[in-house]
């Protein structure tokens, strides 16, 4: 297991003590009065050895502080940042804290990692967890000294009686604190953020030393006694069943234990859980991989055997050409009088933008380890969604969900892919059939050809500016594959005459959330077309966009999501990024600056990219400046900067390099030689990050810094070369100039 995770034994004692200490109290949803099913009820640790006022925290009499990280660590740094929040309120020295990973357990509350919501959902709760314990330790010291608690202060793992200077360490207060009633977490006094000494500083990841010494254990690294190794081969054409396979031959190959066809689909009719395929069970990974090269399968045709990207693109053009009243066109939003506005406009421009399906390409290929004994299953999975993994495994195995125990391992990249649990479903089916612990490992081709992809899309745009150079009309027709722009996606609500049409193509391509879903492409389309309109209006793009953002502070008039858009926060980051980047400074031909800005995942972020394009067309992104408003408090400055740096380079990676082709119902690319990604020589040399703190609750940073990057870079390329690139990936376009 990754990190000193809690063992069942530890955790039983921990939960038991939480109960003993409080005598049957309930603290939020985080303390439970029972013990895990099937475990003995006698206490294994003497009350007083540990102070554990809730399931996230315990202090030992030697002063050691253990904080539980309950959410999956995918590289977003949550295993460091949320425990920092507990430690800050508790008032302990970070070097005295050990962070352990919690297994899936309802007492921890929500445990998924997705949507950049871990910080906004848990920041306040984690503060209360720490503050409750601090309040009780203060009370324990006050009672020990027979003084009012108000005369005591907590600092660096000790309580000090201010008038006399007496000090008691937390470890010495464990026994007394454990006898106190746990206060209502809503009533505890939180620290004044101005007094924070840990939050906002740069703290390295708690598992850094393990990572750099090869000791951090990911899903792929898990082992069980008697474990066997599996590969699971699915039809390249999604969802197709195996009609026959040469399993009898495969079974004779060296190291192979078994080979069989699986002909189930769970959940029925869906292609995102267990789908049909052929399993090979072997005594090592290489035996399984080698045997696979001799496997021959006859597949049925599949539901969409002739899907192709070319075909999709043609259908999209036809739908767009057919007009707003054609079948398959849905009017999602209409404001003002769009026809009248176009007729009265000073200038009207049209442009079509398109982008392909892309893969998550997690560097750790999908994998899982499942052990089934009787009606109990244990799962070790690199999952962003452990309760989803539990649910689908239970469905596959036909056991109640609470018989499925999930250990959340460290994860070699999430990006949304691991919110879906198809590898868990597959592994559960194989483990049940095999009767031994099974480790399932996808190879890179499985991973690229059976991903749940970021959908491609086509946007047909028409915009107008009036005689004053203001954006007066916006007509957008989005043709996609099931998920479309929402009625309040930017720039809806800011343009007086606005029409959004949506259409969806029949496809059969598995799709799923990819880092900043929707926003990761909508920001590019809208941000680039706004830049086109600024130039059409002969306006500076920063001024044009600030004018569009208007003078209202909060733009509500909600559409589908009902989320208000805080225009004043956005104007602030746009102004600041222009200032920090030195916007408007003259640059030689071949160099240019571009602006991108987008609101997503509760973050308001603006970025300016500075690029150089050689006459031969070689692109270099010299510098990116980001101004980030994610509220009042940066939790871990190092982690936050790392997320923004990574989002910027990842955004560049997706926009510049990544592309999947679809032919005859399947993805063409089979490995990283065909699915190319950005490498270190193309990473920007300079990235400057400024956090614009505002008086709003802290929000997450796993996603929102990614969307603004692509429009910033593409608008900079236009400034440098005069070339408008309206198709992703960028690598398809010749940028040479003379």
């Amino acid at each position, binding site marked *: 297991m990754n990190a000193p995770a809690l063992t069942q034994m530890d955790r039983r004692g921990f939960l038991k003590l939480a109960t003993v200490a409080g005598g049957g109290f309930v603290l939020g949803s985080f303390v439970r009065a029972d013990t895990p099913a099937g475990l003995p009820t006698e206490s294994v640790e003497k009350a007083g050895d540990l102070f554990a006022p809730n399931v996230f925290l315990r202090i030992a009499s030697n002063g050691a502080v253990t904080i539980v990280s309950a959410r999956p660590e995918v590289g977003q740094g949550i295993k460091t940042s949320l425990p920092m929040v507990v430690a800050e309120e508790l008032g302990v020295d970070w070097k005295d804290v050990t962070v352990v990973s919690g297994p899936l357990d309802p007492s921890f509350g929500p445990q998924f990692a997705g949507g950049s919501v871990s910080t906004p959902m848990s920041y306040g709760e984690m503060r209360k967890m720490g503050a409750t314990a601090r309040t009780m330790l203060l009370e324990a010291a006050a009672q020990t000294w027979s003084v009012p608690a108000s005369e005591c202060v907590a600092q660096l793992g000790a309580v000090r009686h201010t008038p006399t200077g007496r000090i008691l360490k937390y470890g010495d207060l464990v026994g007394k604190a454990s006898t106190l009633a746990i206060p209502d977490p809503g009533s505890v006094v939180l620290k004044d953020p101005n007094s924070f000494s840990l939050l906002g500083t740069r703290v390295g990841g708690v598992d850094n030393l393990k990572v750099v010494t090869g000791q951090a254990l990911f899903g792929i690294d898990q*082992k069980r006694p008697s474990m066997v190794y599996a590969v699971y081969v699915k039809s390249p054409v999604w969802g197709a069943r195996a009609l026959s396979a040469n399993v009898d031959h495969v079974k004779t190959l060296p190291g192979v234990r078994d080979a069989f066809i699986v002909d189930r689909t769970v959940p029925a009719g869906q292609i995102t859980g267990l789908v049909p395929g052929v399993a090979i069970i072997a005594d090592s990974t290489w035996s399984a991989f080698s045997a696979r090269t001799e496997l021959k399968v006859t597949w049925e045709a599949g539901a969409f055997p002739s899907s192709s990207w070319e075909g999709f693109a043609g259908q999209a053009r036809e739908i767009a050409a057919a007009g707003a009243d054609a079948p398959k066109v849905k009017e999602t939003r209409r404001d003002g009088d769009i026809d009248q506005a176009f007729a009265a406009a000073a200038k009207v421009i049209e442009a079509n933008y398109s982008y392909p399906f892309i893969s998550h390409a997690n560097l750790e290929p999908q994998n899982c380890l499942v052990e089934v004994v009787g009606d109990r299953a244990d799962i070790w999975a690199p999952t962003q969604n452990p309760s989803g993994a539990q649910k689908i495994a239970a469905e596959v195995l036909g056991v109640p969900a609470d018989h499925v125990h999930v250990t959340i391992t460290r994860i070699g990249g999430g990006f949304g892919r691991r919110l879906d649990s198809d590898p868990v479903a597959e592994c559960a089916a194989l483990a049940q059939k095999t009767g031994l612990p099974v480790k399932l490992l996808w190879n890179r081709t499985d991973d690229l050809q059976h991903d749940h992809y970021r959908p491609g899309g086509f946007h047909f745009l028409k915009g107008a500016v009036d005689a004053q150079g203001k954006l007066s009309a916006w007509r957008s027709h989005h043709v996609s594959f099931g998920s479309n722009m929402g009625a309040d996606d930017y720039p809806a609500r800011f343009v007086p005459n606005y029409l959004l049409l949506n259409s969806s193509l029949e496809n059969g391509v598995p799709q799923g959330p990819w880092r900043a879903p929707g926003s990761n492409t909508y920001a590019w389309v809208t941000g680039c077309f706004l830049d086109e309109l600024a130039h059409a209006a002969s306006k500076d793009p920063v001024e044009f966009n600030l004018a569009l953002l208007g003078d209202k502070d909060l733009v509500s008039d909600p559409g589908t999501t009902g989320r208000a858009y805080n225009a004043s926060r956005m104007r602030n980051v746009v102004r600041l990024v222009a200032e920090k980047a030195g916007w408007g400074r003259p640059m030689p031909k071949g160099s240019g600056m571009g602006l991108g800005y987008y609101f997503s995942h509760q973050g308001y972020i603006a970025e300016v990219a500075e690029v150089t394009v050689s006459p031969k067309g070689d692109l270099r992104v010299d510098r990116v400046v980001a101004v980030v408003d994610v509220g009042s408090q940066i939790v871990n400055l190092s982690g936050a900067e790392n997320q923004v740096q990574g989002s910027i380079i990842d955004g560049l990676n997706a926009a510049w390099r990544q592309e999947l082709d679809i032919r005859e119902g399947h993805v063409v690319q089979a490995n990283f030689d065909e699915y190319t990604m950005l490498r270190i020589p193309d990473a920007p040399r300079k990235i400057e990050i400024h956090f614009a703190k505002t008086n709003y609750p802290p929000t997450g940073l796993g996603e929102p810094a990614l969307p603004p990057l692509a429009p910033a870079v593409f608008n900079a390329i236009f400034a440098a070369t005069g070339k408008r690139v309206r198709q992703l990936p960028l690598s398809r376009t010749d940028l040479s100039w003379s």
Partner: protein
Amino acid sequence: MSKFNLLVNGQSHEVDVAPDTPLLWVLRDHLGLVGTKFGCGIGQCGACTIHLDGNPARGCLTPVAAAGASKITTIEGLSPDGTHPLQRAWCELDVAQCGYCQAGQIMSAAALLAQNPRPTDGDIDDAMAGNLCRCATYYRIRAGIHRASDLASSAAEVRK
């Protein structure tokens, strides 16, 4: 199956595997050294980078039969206690995000620094272009290599 004697991180091991088994899987499945990672199997991602006699090699493309008497070094053997300048720099600059590629990154960078203690950005580009980082921590990887170079040279100064 054939028997092979391997010298891994200064220790000799005997394994009984098919001769075409890549070192990556011998290390991971047979010797329990799982710090070396699988990413693509065709030498494109660099997650399986190890050293053979000090030179970087892709574990996924090196059959066990080709290892011969080479000294094999994995991330677990780069230093006894995580104090190689790159390991220290990586912790100091908090380079990793998910961390999956970082063993391979560090092994490639260690081979670079052994050859070239003061690499330029261009040298780093050349030496590190074979290692993918899906979290795109390239900005800190670059800074980490420069920092390790500084740490190593100041240690060298002290030794003088």
